[in-house]
């Protein structure tokens, strides 16, 4: 379980994350949603130790994450951030092998190789494992990075806007994979999403942020309704039910 306790982060005088307390339940997909500048990514970065919090703490089980050794932390929590200039020429297999770095320090054991093979297989990348990353399409590259995280074999998988720059088909593909990670492999996924309908259809719980504060939090259906959405986005958003999925029709709202 990850517990965020009274966490704040200031950039200058402005609190980007303002006294946030949230509990992440294990074995579920939790989505962070909210308008631009709500502090979603900053919160995720602090939970994954990429950023230090100014006040407050994050507990992994019962331990303050700042007290956990970086090797051990890398075996429990992984984070994928969107990087704009990924021009490193690694093959898919090399990238996925780096997922084993916390365990192997670069010298892969038999067991590490097994994990790498399984991760490639799981993401349907075995046939193209020797291709260079810079020769792949956006969707393939994203799958390669998720394969790396699978090889890293952490209980918690954190993703910062993994659907950026992906078309509909690949976005659905990635979300289905994340759902599988939770349902089949028992992982806990925390994800920052822009598209509220992906959050609605695929997540178990939603944490809505606005101006650095948690404004709503709970099971998906408690958040995806016109009242709650009005508070989060200041928009009147009709919600329609379609095959058991709640879809927010925000395109012509005001």
């Amino acid at each position, binding site marked *: 379980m990850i517990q965020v306790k009274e966490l704040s982060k200031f950039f200058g005088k402005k609190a980007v994350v303002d006294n946030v307390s949230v509990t992440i339940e294990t074995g579920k997909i939790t989505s962070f949603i909210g308008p631009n500048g709500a502090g979603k990514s900053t919160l995720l970065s602090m939970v*994954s*130790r*990429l950023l230090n919090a100014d006040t407050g703490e994050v507990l992994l089980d019962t331990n303050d994450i700042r007290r956990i*050794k*970086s*090797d*051990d*932390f*890398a*075996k429990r929590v*992984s*984070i*994928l*951030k969107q*990087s704009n*200039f*990924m*021009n*490193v*020429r*690694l*093959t898919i297999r*090399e990238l996925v092998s*780096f*997922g084993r*770095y*916390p365990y192997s*320090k*670069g010298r892969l054991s038999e067991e590490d190789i097994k994990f790498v093979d399984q991760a490639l297989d799981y993401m349907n990348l075995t046939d193209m494992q020797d291709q*260079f990353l*810079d020769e792949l399409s956006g969707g393939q590259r994203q799958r390669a990075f998720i394969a790396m995280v699978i090889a*890293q074999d952490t209980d918690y998988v954190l993703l910062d806007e993994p659907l950026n720059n992906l078309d509909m088909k690949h976005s659905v593909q990635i979300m289905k994979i994340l759902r599988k990670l939770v349902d089949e492999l028992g992982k806990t996924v925390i994800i920052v999403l822009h598209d509220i309908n992906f959050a609605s259809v695929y997540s178990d719980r939603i944490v809505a942020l606005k101006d650095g504060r948690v404004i709503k939090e709970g099971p998906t259906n408690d958040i995806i309704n016109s009242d709650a959405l009005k508070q989060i986005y200041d928009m009147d958003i009709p919600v329609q039910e379609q095959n058991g999925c709640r879809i927010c029709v925000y395109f012509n709202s005001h």
Partner: protein
Amino acid sequence: MRLWILIVAAVILSSISLFLGATNITPTDLLDFSSDEAEIFYISRIPRLVAIILAGMGMSIAGLIMQSLSRNKFVSPTTAGTLDAAKLGILISMLFFAGASYTQQIIFSFAFALIGTLVFMQILNRIKFKDAIFIPLIGIMYGNILSSITVFFAYENDLLQNIDAWLMGDFSLIIKGRYELLYVSIPVLIIAYIYANRFTVAGMGEDFAKNLGVRYKFVLNLGLVLVALISTTVVLTVGVIPFLGLIVPNLVSIFKGDNLAKTLPHTAVLGVVFLLACDIIGRVIIYPYEIPINLTVGVIGSAIFLIMLFRGRAYAK
């Protein structure tokens, strides 16, 4: 690009290098240790070969580490001010300590090379517009500023000719007793190899490195220290060899990718082959005289660099 082909090429070029020069030496001469030929062989030819091998490996690996850590294909000791900072360090040591000892020169040159490169990395951090070509241009301008400071103070103090000597990478002055500093690059290369995986991970960015539990800042600083050490020893013994750290790692990267653990040996050996070839060309072209290495490497290197620029924009983006 097979490693063994590169090694065979290096061995062949090495033997050519050993038996090429104004004095004609044959292998049988070497059996007589007291002969002039044997003496030339041991005092001049072997040190020259060893110097070329160590400098070739060192500068290529230094370039490879810099390109990985700066995440830019065109950053190298020549295009990031490292070599210019090293020269400035030597000058300062000569200005402030009359008749500075060799050790003082080494320390100053190393300190300046390190600080100079750190400053460049800081500049890099602050630039939002990370274009593959733009960054090295900034580096070259920065290097020229450092260089002009060096030249100004050298001119004021009548040291211009000494400066010219360092500017001019030249292996013809390498004899026994004047190149041994280059052996520093051997432990440096070993450390580079041990840390190859961490350099690759750091080259994927700070967030990526932290996710895998790699201490990013430490790896970054270690890499810069290694680069500064190699650059210093090469500048102090051979002089500036341009383009080497730029072209060699890029050629290897095109074929073998950027996984340092895999490409480091190739890069080191290709660096040796390239430098040996340039040296031999420089010694043959106006035989029995020779052209300094920085000229041959400069001409051949800039041609290859231009080809890479025109053909490789997509690859280096």
